[in-house]
């Protein structure tokens, strides 16, 4: 009955803020390009076990290094392994770490920040103090320590990297919650006797989501970068599993004679980072009307 009445043609349709933001996003060509590239990469990564031309550890010692050719689009490395396959498997690793570690950071950060912001007062002060102290620690170094000690498994990377990134997420979430909490419509909700859960779900969360989405999208490339960084140093994903970082590292060693071994993984990594950053920037501009290009 209600939905019938509400969809009566007499009523003027409203345009929500989210629809407005999407409209702005669609106009941003770089962001949309980034989104498509990202989707393409994700699809390839998911389908890799089925569509990769070779297996990732299939060696052909007799072949050795070859330059890009018909059989091997990106060439082969010293052990005769097909580079295209290795880059594709590498994308699985990097994207997996990127999304999952970010998800870990998101979960912890949102819970921590939202609780601190919502509770306010002493609880907030203590919780954010902890964040401040942890922030001062050299986490990259700790992660290196952890990988040295416990070996570098994917699980460890997810947890360790997530444990580093949640701090900034918590700060952002808390900041947003505090800002929204002070808005009068939240006071109005309180004064109408709504339950805390109703206030959080209908009033706080929808208004806090925007910056969180933006920041999450921008965290993924940092995480991928961190993982590649570790792999480059030899402290991350171990061979024969390939990560873009370790591929680049191997490529550096022979870069003068066989530059393509360095260039292709490097290019793939950079393009991924570009797409994510453009998309994140686009989201940020779309959600913040102040930076609109008039």
């Amino acid at each position, binding site marked *: 009955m*209600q939905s019938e009445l509400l969809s009566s043609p*007499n*009523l003027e349709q409203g345009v929500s803020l989210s629809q407005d933001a999407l409209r702005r996003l669609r106009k941003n060509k770089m962001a949309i390009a980034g989104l498509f590239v990202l989707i393409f990469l994700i699809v390839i990564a998911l389908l890799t076990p089925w569509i990769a031309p070779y297996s990732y550890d299939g060696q052909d010692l007799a072949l050795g290094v070859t330059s890009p050719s018909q059989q091997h689009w990106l060439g082969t490395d010293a052990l005769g392994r097909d580079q295209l396959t290795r880059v594709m498997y590498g994308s699985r690793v990097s994207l997996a770490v990127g999304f999952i570690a970010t998800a870990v950071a998101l979960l912890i950060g949102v819970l921590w920040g939202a609780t601190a912001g919502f509770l306010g007062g002493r609880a907030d002060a203590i919780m954010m103090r902890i964040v401040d102290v942890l922030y001062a620690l050299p986490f990259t170094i700790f992660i290196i320590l952890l990988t040295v000690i416990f070996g570098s498994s994917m699980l460890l990377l997810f947890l360790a990297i997530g444990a580093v990134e949640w701090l900034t997420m918590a700060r952002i979430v808390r900041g947003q919650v505090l800002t929204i909490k002070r808005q*009068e419509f939240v006071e109005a909700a309180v004064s109408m006797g709504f339950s805390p859960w109703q206030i959080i779900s*209908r009033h706080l969360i*929808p*208004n806090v989501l925007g910056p969180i989405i933006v920041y999450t999208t921008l965290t993924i490339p940092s995480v991928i970068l961190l993982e590649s960084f570790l792999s480059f140093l030899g402290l991350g994903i171990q061979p024969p599993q390939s990560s873009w970082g370790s591929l680049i590292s191997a490529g550096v060693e022979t870069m003068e004679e066989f530059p393509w071994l360095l260039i292709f993984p490097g290019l793939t990594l950079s393009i991924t980072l570009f797409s994510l950053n453009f998309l994140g920037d686009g989201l940020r501009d779309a959600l913040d009307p102040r930076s609109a290009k*008039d």
Partner: protein
Amino acid sequence: MLSVKNLRVVFNTRNGTAVAVDDLSFELKAGEVLGIVGESGSGKSVACYSLLGLIPTPPGKIERGTAEFLGRDLLQMNESELRKIRGLKISMIFQDPMTSLNPYMRVVDQLIESVLEHQNLSKEEARQRAIKALTEVGIRDVDTRINEYPHQFSGGMRQRVMIAMALITEPQLLIADEPTTALDVTVQAQILALIKKLQQTHNLAVIFITHDLGVALQMADNIIVMEKGKLIEQGTTEKIFKQPAQAYTQKLLSAVLTTSKPTPSLAEKTEPPFLQVKQLKTYFPKFGGVFIKRLIGSEKAVDDISLTINRGEILGVVGESGSGKSTLGRSIMRLVDAQSGEILLEGKDLLNLSDSDLKKSRRNFQMIFQDPYASLNPRMTVFDTLAEPLLTHKLATQKNVVEQVNQLMDDVGLDRRFIRKYPHEFSGGQRQRIAIARAIALKPKLIIADEPVSALDVTIRAQILKLLLELTQKHQLTMLFISHDMSVVRYLCDRVLVMQKGKLVEEGETETLFSAPKESYTQQLLAAIPKL
């Protein structure tokens, strides 16, 4: 000295081209004060900014017009020529002195800047000029204060500094853009008097931009009324006041005239009294320190306030910023916790309720907030906003909620067709109507209105006040009306309470208070209302 003809300024936004100023012409003689009056969107500020080339030129554009000043057309000048006029021949002062002064620079440096830029004086001579200028605007202990930063001055003082800064180069024309709007009422009067005095002493020509026709009538020799970019009416102050020709001018004038309440009070005394507040104290702890916060005292926002409201009465609470009037409202609403005292609504205690009892009681007292932009959830449609309280408190079922929402829309004068729209698609006045609809949705016994019209344009204000008056009568509401504006209070309220720094200064029947105020602070507040 200044002759503006056919000025047309447009803005090219991504939503199309907006005409900000449409065919404006006026004249200004030396030593004359011209008041430009208009509400938001009237183009009054844009017109004056464009004279000095201060509007951003994308997206703005001066399409047509001439502005002759001292024999040259300002609108034809290039940037470096304009720079020789700005701050030297024509100076400006702005609305908000806190944000208009550079917080990182000492006052003295900001004062001597324009002197050093435009005139060939040494730093020491410039400094002497600055001291003289500050003394002239009424700053005391100038020798020490001149080295301080803006945040060390109060609002009124900062505006005085701005004025000194504008006049230090002895310009011929001063453009004042709403210079008193952001100030407290009593301070406003002082600054207006100061500007008047300086104008006479220096024989300055002044363009005084304001949304308040009352202020313009006080300050100006001639007045221009603008609406939506067009010149509606112009004439001498006397003519505008005595014989306003256009309907819009008449609307502005009537909104400014302080009239008493048009309908009789519906108050009825009951035993126990409808709302009783006894010795209420709300203190806020003050924390000092940049990185470690320590308790260094408390701010006594509400300091031992007692009051009574009778059923059906509209009680006004008046005060300037910092008086505690908002905190009083929020304390009664239980949005802020009072330290001690009693609040009794129809004899029932509101302070010592359990959480679940409080939630249930809340529907009996509702609030209308000041800022129509912030008091509505931007992600909920009008329907969602109005239906939520009805459904939560089971006043409506899924079947009849649409009809109830429609009735609320009718009550506040909004078109039913808009219920699926979002807050950002409405104007300020419409949003406030939605907020009022939300407040009465739960059929509360008491409504606390916290400056509900202060953020609205003058003509809209009158409509909303009329709406509030009608609603209180139709639904037999009792209201606590908080405001800093004495004339609004006079129109709406049966009784008035005056607050200052958390304490009750005076209370009484509205007309009695207005005609024979007992306390000197009340007299000060009343004296600040522009006399016409």
